[in-house]
């Protein structure tokens, strides 16, 4: 197999994994690992991994909403609606448990509805404090993480320090490769469409992480030496919450833009979760949430979101910023006007795209994207 063929095969394989529905995910579980679901980067995946599970992230699979309507009002984001739909339909019955983390009001409500339905044998509500710039919150969260560890141990057996350190190394390696992948994409942007990058990242949430690391390593090792050539697209930064579908990247590229970096909750933002491998692993898992800004549902000072976004946009080389938000996501929409004002004041035009149902109505956004990209060209 030539180097080029191998690279393309790996891309295809990762894309296939990213496109799996829950029934396919269930049939591709690694032997001996227990599938546990989670939603949010505030759940320490490393702890789930060390407990012998395969952590599977719920991130808005395309599904027709019908059962969830009997439980949720219309003004909930599609992530919550689709996840509850999957749950009520029984698509997630293969999971042996779920870990919720305290983030937004809608997620808190979802966790309670999930409990009432009681379809899964294990549910843990990890109470992530909101005031993440306080040492008091750090002490509190350390106890919460210890409680999660104890709950997992009760169900699955003792989690040794060594297994936790091993999981930390594994996830660090994954993030290191993803970081390299983002860097390669900047140097060799014609090699892979944005959709391909999104699928590579997404695949990692739906599969065995050891296997994922192997695939990522293979992909980087087989990355062709010669650049695929310069692309004419306008460099853009993509800011938002979860993007379940790589089709958004395609749409941006069809309009003549190209995402050079993002802070998506399902994307580059999770690279901030890399932790030190020395010392007490639980401490390291806890500390990272206090030293990095992750989510606008949390408070880390009144300027934290603005400062970090501006810095990343400036460093990315983007000419403009696209905000891609789930409709009804309060935390993002509250921050948006001030972020927009700040970025535009610094010479970065912005465009807001609102997603209600990610599987629909993309075409109507194409014209807005084209106009935006044209303005930046």
């Amino acid at each position, binding site marked *: 197999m030539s180097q080029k063929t191998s690279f393309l095969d790996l891309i295809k394989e990762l894309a296939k994994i990213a496109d799996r529905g829950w029934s396919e995910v269930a049939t591709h579980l690694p032997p001996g690992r227990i599938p546990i679901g989670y939603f949010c980067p505030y759940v320490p995946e490393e702890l789930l991994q060390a407990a012998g599970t395969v952590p599977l992230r719920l991130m808005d699979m395309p599904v027709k909403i019908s059962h969830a309507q*009997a*439980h*949720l*009002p219309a*003004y*909930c984001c599609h992530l919550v609606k689709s996840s509850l739909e999957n749950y009520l339909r029984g698509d997630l019955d293969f999971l042996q448990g779920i870990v919720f983390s*305290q983030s*937004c*009001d*809608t997620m*808190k*409500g*979802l*966790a*309670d*509805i999930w*409990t*009432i339905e009681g379809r899964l044998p294990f549910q843990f*509500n990890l*109470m992530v*404090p*909101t*005031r993440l710039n*306080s040492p*008091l*919150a750090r*002490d*509190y969260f350390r*106890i*919460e993480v210890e409680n999660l560890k104890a709950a997992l141990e009760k169900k699955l057996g003792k989690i040794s320090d060594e297994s936790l350190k091993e999981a930390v190394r594994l996830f660090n390696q994954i993030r290191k490769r993803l970081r390299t992948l983002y860097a390669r994409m900047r140097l060799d942007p014609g090699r892979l469409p944005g959709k391909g990058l999104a699928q590579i990242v997404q695949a990692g949430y739906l599969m065995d992480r050891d296997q994922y690391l192997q695939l990522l390593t293979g992909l980087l090792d087989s990355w062709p030496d010669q650049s695929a050539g310069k692309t004419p697209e306008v460099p853009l930064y993509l800011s938002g919450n979860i993007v379940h579908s790589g089709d958004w990247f395609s749409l941006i590229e069809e309009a003549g833009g190209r995402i050079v970096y993002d802070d998506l909750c399902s994307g580059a933002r999770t690279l901030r979760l890399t932790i030190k491998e020395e010392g007490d692993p639980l401490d390291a898992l806890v500390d990272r949430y206090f030293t990095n800004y992750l989510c*606008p*549902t949390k*408070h880390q000072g*009144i*300027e934290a979101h603005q400062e970090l976004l501006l810095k990343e946009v400036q460093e990315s080389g983007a000419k403009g910023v696209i905000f891609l938000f789930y*409709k*009804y996501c*309060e*935390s993002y*929409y*509250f*921050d*948006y*006007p*001030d972020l*927009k*004002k700040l970025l535009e004041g610094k010479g970065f035009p912005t465009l807001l795209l609102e997603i209600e149902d990610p599987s629909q109505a993309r075409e109507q956004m194409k014209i807005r994207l084209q106009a935006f990209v044209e303005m930046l060209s």
Partner: protein
Amino acid sequence: MATKKTAPKSYREIESVKAYRRLMQGYYLMATHPKWFGKKTAWITSGGPVEPLYAMGVLPFYPENYGAMCGAGREAVSLCETAEAQGYSRDLCSYARLDIGSSISGKGPLGVLPKPNFLVCGNNICGTVIKWYEIQARKFQVPLFFLDTPFIHKELTDHTIQYVRRQMEEYVAFLEKACRRPFSEKRFLKVSARSVEAVSLWKEILELSRSRPAPFAAFDAFIHMAPIVTLRGTGWAVRYYKKLKKELENRVKNGQGAFAREEIRLIWDNIPIWYDIRNLSQLLARHGAVLVADTYTSAWTLKPLDLANPLESLSRSYASVLLNLGLEHKVANMSELIKQYQADGFIMHSNRSCKTYSLGQYDLKKKVTELTGKPGLIIEADHTDSRSYAPSQVEKQIETFVEMARTR
């Protein structure tokens, strides 16, 4: 006027309302002119610990209470539109939008609001307030104290109490720095004692409506709750509620209800639809239905403070307000209200502006009906933004529901 004499009124006016108006006018005079009274002001969330503020001589201002005022006075929409023009989504909480709009335009029932000296935000009522207060802290460039109270799905744990308690100590230090004077334990105890008394009085007032007929409807409570929110910890609130309680006790003694007809007793869930209170009240009255209790105003019947250990009990009390509790607790609370107030059913306001109150209402309705046998109705609206409200549809839903409750 002659027309007033033709039809007997079904609603019995509360005489204390005059004292209520004087009290709230006095409060808002101070809140809008703090310098006249030599006061610092703090904007505070409705579930925030106000006792330490009063103990420091700081006047609290409640943007949510102001939001209710704007909603009831039908001034909310234009203020929301001002915020929307700045990029704030219409899907955001309308209390926040109108407050932001008012800060931008300087308009609203109280005109230009004075710049607060600092902000105090507690997320025991929702996550919305975190973002809202961050925005206002950036706008006014004033310090923000944020009290984090983790949500209680099942039970209040010891480490949660300790976390909140340690933050209360930080809160005290924050106030000392902001006010440039030491915190007086003695004064705090005095304020806390008044708070305990006002909360007890408010609880007793609401409980009077367990009588048949109910002397004090939920629509009355929506109005008369203002002092327990804004003046909790002051002698004014205590004096006012003593007066109101006396009047209502007389009603009970004389068998007088808030409404002349009381055939169906109902419980209300969620924040009121402020701009349509009068209409809904009249609609229910026409059908002989009375809202005898609600989950909203009863949220200020906080767990009593232990004066021997005020900071600890303040932490426990503020960490476990109804909106910070999971669905299991809400089911128990609503079922208990139905039982205690001998209600025939309940109306739930699915409030676009309050996800923390509204998420889970469908399951809540189902569970409460299973437990109590009483029917529930969910109506859709927004607490202050009337653009998200279809009154004729809601009226029809309520009429059908009341008739259904009557026949059960």
